[in-house]
């Protein structure tokens, strides 16, 4: 047997290109369905874990999937905002603590999440360096954001304008990094967190500018009438909040109408959850999404698609095996003289057949081993891979 395996090995090594193609085909057809299943399982786990840790999400009427994706993963289109008053309304029920969310803006491709410091407590996020934000204009970076930007506590980042050509739009805001979160293995690693009021300033609802009531600001005054001063376009707008100018920042309008993309509620028990959902059952403008259900429906769709892909992979696999069998039978024809020589010099039918089978077995076993290694690697690093795919 040792000699037969040696001859088989020499044959395969000599025809290395043909062998590699066969090996690759077999490895892929074995790995594809299994690897896909492992990846889907990893995705399911990640999606459901975070969804189950987020009991209820309130938002404007619309797609519950869009609302959940935006609130949990800081992805998808910007959902229709609701007024800040909704947060107060839920709080007034006394049924659950809440966390406001405003996820609209970005900085260098990373989402800026406007929220309150309770968010970190509910998500069990720990600060690795520095502290949580405490003032307007401060922000905290997720671990991966800090690594990818090479940012440290004390550095600053600037919010990206939503539209480069929107001259009437919001100003970029320079935010000071006061903390960097520990690695959490979640979408929080890829986000920039700031106080919700800081995101309203990015939005342009709040702003800070030169004090036009001072006498030396006359060049920026368009008209002055009693206590009413109208500034002209030359007024200096602050794009950074510092200890010196923080007093100049103020909001216009009624805070109850300021926008939120969502409010996450954390009812302490099922009863509180049911009561809270009941209150909003017939609400015309607000929806209550249960992320575990929304993600469950999404997973059902993914699993259906996966079944189709696996079925396709099996068919491709069968076709590949049929092609491999054809290649093998054709190679037997091409090797007729070699086989005759082996018979003439004393090789038995059994030893010649075992030589040919050994060649196939070596390729098949190598394919199985490689597919196994790939599967183990996928299950080991699948979570990382899924996150990388999700980020793309």
């Amino acid at each position, binding site marked *: 047997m040792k*000699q*037969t395996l*040696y*001859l088989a090995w*020499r*044959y395969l*090594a*000599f*025809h290395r290109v043909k062998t590699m193609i066969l090996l690759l085909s077999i490895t892929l057809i074995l790995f594809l369905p299994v690897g896909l299943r492992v990846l889907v399982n990893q995705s399911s786990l990640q999606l459901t874990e975070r969804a189950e840790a987020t009991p209820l999400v309130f938002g404007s009427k619309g797609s519950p999937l869009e609302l959940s994706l935006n609130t949990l993963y800081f992805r998808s289109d910007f959902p229709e905002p609701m007024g800040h008053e909704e947060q107060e309304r839920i709080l007034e029920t006394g049924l659950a603590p809440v966390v406001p969310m405003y996820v609209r803006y970005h900085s260098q491709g990373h989402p800026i999440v406007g929220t309150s410091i309770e968010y970190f407590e509910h998500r069990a996020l720990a600060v690795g360096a520095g502290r949580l934000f405490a003032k307007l204009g401060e922000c905290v970076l997720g671990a991966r954001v800090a690594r990818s930007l090479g940012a440290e506590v004390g550095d600053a980042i600037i919010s990206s304008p939503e539209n480069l050509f929107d001259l009437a739009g919001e100003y970029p805001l320079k935010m000071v990094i006061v903390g960097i979160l520990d690695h959490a293995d979640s979408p929080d690693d890829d986000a920039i967190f700031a106080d919700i009021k800081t995101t309203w300033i990015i939005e342009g609802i709040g702003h800070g500018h030169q004090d036009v009531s001072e006498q030396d600001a006359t060049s920026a005054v368009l008209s002055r009438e009693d206590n009413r001063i109208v500034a002209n376009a030359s007024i200096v707008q602050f794009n950074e909040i510092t200890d010196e100018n923080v007093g100049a920042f103020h909001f216009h309008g009624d805070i109850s109408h300021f926008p939120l993309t969502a409010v996450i509620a954390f009812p302490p028990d099922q009863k509180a959850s049911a009561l809270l959902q009941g209150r909003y059952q017939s609400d015309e403008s607000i929806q209550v999404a249960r992320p575990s259900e929304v993600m469950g429906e999404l997973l059902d769709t993914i699993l259906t698609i996966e079944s189709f892909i696996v079925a396709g992979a099996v068919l491709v696999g069968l076709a590949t095996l049929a092609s491999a069998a054809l290649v093998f039978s054709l190679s037997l024809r091409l090797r007729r*003289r*070699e086989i005759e*020589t*082996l*018979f*003439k*010099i*004393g*090789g*038995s039918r059994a*030893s*010649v057949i075992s*030589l040919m089978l050994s060649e196939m077995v070596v390729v098949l076993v190598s394919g199985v081993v490689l597919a196994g290694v790939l599967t183990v690697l996928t299950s080991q690093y699948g979570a990382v891979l899924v996150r990388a795919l999700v980020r793309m």
Partner: protein
Amino acid sequence: MTSDAVIRIRDLEFRYGEGDFRLRIPELSIQSASSVAFAGPSGSGKTTLLHLIAGIVTPIQGRIATAGVDVSALSDRDRRGFRIRHIGLVFQEFELLEYLSVLDNVLLPYRINPALDLTQEVVERAHALTEQVGMVDKLRRAPRQLSQGERQRVAVCRAVLAEPRVLMADEPTGNLDPLNKGKVLDILFDYQKTSGTTLLTVTHDQDVLERFERVVDFKEFHA
């Protein structure tokens, strides 16, 4: 028929399927340690007789005794065992395996036959044989890296590695230039003389025929 004949054939008849070809040999003896050439026109059955003596094919009638064994009476398995132990074969087209090195080609009978044990002694014998034919410095080369003459020398080493009692060469110089033809024949005759083996060769070449002790003309057997 002499008493020290290594091959004895009597009333042999052979044909391939339903074709026209027929080989009839009423009687033929070949002495041990002799060199015999089979000559005759193409299709007269020279190669077929080599295959019959080696037990690769069996006659439809008659008896072939090689090295004292009635080959025609043996089972497939026993004929193969007989061939491994007693017969060495050299082919016109060399029939070396392209995916094996020179050394592995020489050792091939030991690698393909579970009945033969590939020991260190066999490997040393392979080295000694390749040294005799001037190939010892090319043991790791592939057949495609050798000249035609070198390939045939490797094929001869493969044929004699198991120390056969009968060495059969089918047109061994058919694909060689005159210089290599002489070298290969020298190797075959040297081996035949030093080992006491019987050398049977099929050839059309008049120069080659002259070097053999006996020439069997197949015209007399052709039906």
